[in-house]
């Protein structure tokens, strides 16, 4: 897919685009506005906020647990958000897109939604099942996660359907695709921040994802630098994505393996429902760690270390840290609607910054407060704030967000390197001089101390001189070490300067520690069979357990172990890791067996150990006698 895209690109596309430094914020944003590629079957696209708040009411969740409506639906305006009603300490202010629905309303909304969205052209296909991609532990964790949803606060079932209908109505009345852009100038970088607002995040309800919530703010950034002649050119692109932070969030503009660029516009592959941004098209298995299992994870990590380092055994479950992964797939195939320059749908830009009142003054949530303690189902706050009202790091630290706070612009880097070389060279000259002077002084002290060695009447003086001599000697040694280290550093710096002057770039992925890679299509063998198996296997295990209890209650535990053993082995064939699974399961059983043997026969083992020790000692002593 990617290679095709690159092949089809005209030659000039791969060269860096430029824009005058004097360009206005809007011109800058427009020049590099991204192309968003959605999945087929996506319901929500980036919208303006005016149309959204027209459908919303403003509420307040009080600390005593009550919700209180502050402003009715249809009466919320940007002016109100610019000066929102005050809320008491501990209360949560939130907008609400979908009013509380009774059973009848919910059913009606669902039916209407199903009828209106019967669009075969734009229908989502999950493809390879998410459960088929992971093992039994993750599937059980998934079941556990689903159960937690019953206990946690969650967005009501029909909300997604109503939200989608309202978005359709809004689009029918005035179709537009909007981004909210912001331009920040910092440390020589010009940062273009693009915010995308969606009416609803339907990842859980429509795509078996982690969560649903009303309103969704997503963001990406472009980092430009002055490249001379009064022009700016892009150097980095940073996309906000699940599970990644800092350096891992950004790609270099010329990194053709990781960043698609179309006519000077970066391409973003948008996750289905989650609206997370990805550099490459595909399906991403997202690791959602279960906080409750963190102590177990830590314990297993410790045991794994003991197993591998102390017992010199091969790892049972891989060498990395244990992660209980819940198999959520973020579908970012990019095979649906495209929005952006030269696409079927073009952008309507809106420039924002701290001086825009609703951005600065509305700290509440942009959708339903679902009372979810882990916040996944609560709506987000605006572009400037976190859910708790604090300022987002992506707003106040646009460079640090993508790990660029430590990276100067390319011209500045060369200047800094030159300056550093000059500093070091000056320091080397100074060190030469200092070492010469101090070495002479050291010699003087050395010969003086030697001359006084035989004179018993000046012992105190000799001791003082020797002390001074030793201190000076240590000082000279430190200076020589610094000089040698500086030499090495200077060589490296000069080599880098030469490389940069010659236009030789570093590996564009050198800064990336964890690369987000879409799941490979060839990850599973016998796709259909694997999917069918993953769908029925947990049920079959349960049926097997029930059969054992009913027909052979005496052998339940043995039968269960055998059943799990067989199921795990079958599963491993689909995942192509039969050998590793056999080893892992057998080693696990062996450890259990050893523990059982030790536990049941500890007295015998102690006696046996004592006898063995006694024999060894006697043998050692007898050998010593024989020598």
């Amino acid at each position, binding site marked *: 897919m990617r290679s095709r895209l690159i092949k089809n690109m005209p030659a000039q596309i791969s060269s860096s685009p430029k824009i005058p430094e004097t360009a206005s914020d809007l011109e800058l944003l427009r020049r590099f506005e991204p192309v968003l590629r959605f999945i087929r079957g996506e319901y929500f696209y980036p919208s303006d906020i005016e149309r959204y708040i027209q459908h919303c009411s403003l509420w307040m969740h009080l600390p005593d647990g009550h919700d209180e409506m502050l402003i009715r639906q249809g009466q919320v305006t940007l002016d109100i958000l610019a000066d929102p009603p005050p809320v008491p300490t501990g209360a949560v202010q939130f907008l609400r897109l979908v009013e509380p629905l009774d059973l009848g309303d919910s059913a009606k909304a669902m039916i209407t939604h199903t009828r209106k969205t019967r669009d075969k052209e734009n229908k989502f296909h999950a493809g390879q099942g998410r459960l088929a991609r992971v093992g039994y532990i993750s599937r059980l964790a998934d079941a556990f996660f689903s159960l937690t949803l019953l206990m946690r606060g969650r967005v009501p079932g029909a909300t997604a359907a109503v939200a989608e209908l309202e978005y359709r109505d809004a689009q029918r009345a005035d179709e537009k695709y909007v981004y909210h852009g912001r331009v920040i100038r910092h440390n020589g970088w010009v940062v273009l921040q693009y915010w995308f607002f969606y009416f609803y995040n339907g990842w859980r309800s429509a795509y078996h994802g982690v969560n649903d919530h009303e309103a969704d703010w997503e963001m990406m950034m472009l980092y430009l630098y002055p490249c001379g002649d009064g022009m700016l050119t892009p150097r980095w692109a940073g996309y906000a994505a699940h599970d990644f932070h800092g350096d891992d969030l950004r790609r270099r503009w010329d990194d053709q393996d990781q960043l698609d660029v179309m006519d000077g516009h970066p391409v973003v592959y948008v996750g289905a429902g989650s609206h997370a941004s990805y550099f490459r098209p595909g399906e991403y298995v997202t690791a959602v760690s279960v906080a409750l299992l963190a102590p177990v994870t830590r314990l297993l990590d410790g045991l794994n270390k003991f197993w591998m380092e102390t017992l*010199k055994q091969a790892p049972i479950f891989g060498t990395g840290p244990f992660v209980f992964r819940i198999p959520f797939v973020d579908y970012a195939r990019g095979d649906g609607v495209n929005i952006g320059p030269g696409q079927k749908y073009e952008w309507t830009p809106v420039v924002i910054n701290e001086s825009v009142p609703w951005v600065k003054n509305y700290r509440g949530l942009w959708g339903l407060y679902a009372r979810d303690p882990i916040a996944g189902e609560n709506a987000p706050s605006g572009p400037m704030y976190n859910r708790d009202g604090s300022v987002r790091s992506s707003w106040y630290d646009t460079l640090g967000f993508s790990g660029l706070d430590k990276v100067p612009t390319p011209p500045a880097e060369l200047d800094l390197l030159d300056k550093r070389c000059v500093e070091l060279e000056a320091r080397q000259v100074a060190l030469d001089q200092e070492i010469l002077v101090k070495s002479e002084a050291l010699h003087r002290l050395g010969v003086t101390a030697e001359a006084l060695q035989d004179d018993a009447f000046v012992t105190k003086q000799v001791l003082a001189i020797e002390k001074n001599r030793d201190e000076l000697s240590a000082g000279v040694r430190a200076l020589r070490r610094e000089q040698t280290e500086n030499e090495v550093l200077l060589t490296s710096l000069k080599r880098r300067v030469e490389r940069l002057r010659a236009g030789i770039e570093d590996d564009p992925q050198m800064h990336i520690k964890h690369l987000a890679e879409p799941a490979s299509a060839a990850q599973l063998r016998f796709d259909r069979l694997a999917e069918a198996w993953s769908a029925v296997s947990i049920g079959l295990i349960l049926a097997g357990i029930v059969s054992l209890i009913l027909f052979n209650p005496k*052998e339940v535990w043995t039968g269960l*172990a055998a059943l799990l053993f067989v199921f795990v*082995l079958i599963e491993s064939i689909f995942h192509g890791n039969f*050998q590793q699974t056999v080893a892992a399961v*057998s080693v696990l059983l*062996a*450890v259990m067996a050893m523990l059982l*043997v030790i536990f049941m026969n500890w007295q015998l083992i102690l006696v046996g150990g004592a006898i063995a020790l006694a024999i060894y000692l006697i043998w050692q002593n007898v050998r010593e006698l024989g020598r």
Partner: protein
Amino acid sequence: MKFFSFKKKTKDSEPHTKRPASVTLIAWLSLIDMFITILIGLLGIWIMLPQVARLIPISASPVLQEMADWLEVPQTETGTLTAQELQPIIEAVFDLVTGILGLYFTLNFLRLKPWGWTWLMLYNGVVLIILFGDCIRGEPDYVSLFLSALVILLMNQKEVRIAFKIDKKYASTNLIISKNS
């Protein structure tokens, strides 16, 4: 002793992998275990011959008749056995079959065949599950539990896995020696 000096067959041009001492140790432990298992199976069948004979129409075949005479099996009518009579026969046959299978895996393990490693591992895993079942039934066999677990843990050692190229990342040149050297 020629029988046990198995060497992995390799082409002349191919380097061959040196068999670590622990592989030989595991193989010996397994061989003893398999021979004992086969012996127990044969002995069980021998003891149960009169019952086994009732399952086979001996008089229908002169060869079978001759064998029965040689083994001094008492002449009985062909018929069915009760579950209690059948149980020890099944156990003996099971021991014999698993013993032979285990022997086959062990010999290939000794020849440094990766699949020999996998199936011997699987074999011991299955044995452990059966032994756990015995423990739950109140008939623990701690010696067998210990031996099977020991074999598995020995097989899981890094040097053994390297010898069988189980984990490519552990592949090291120090165990690969040129045949010419």
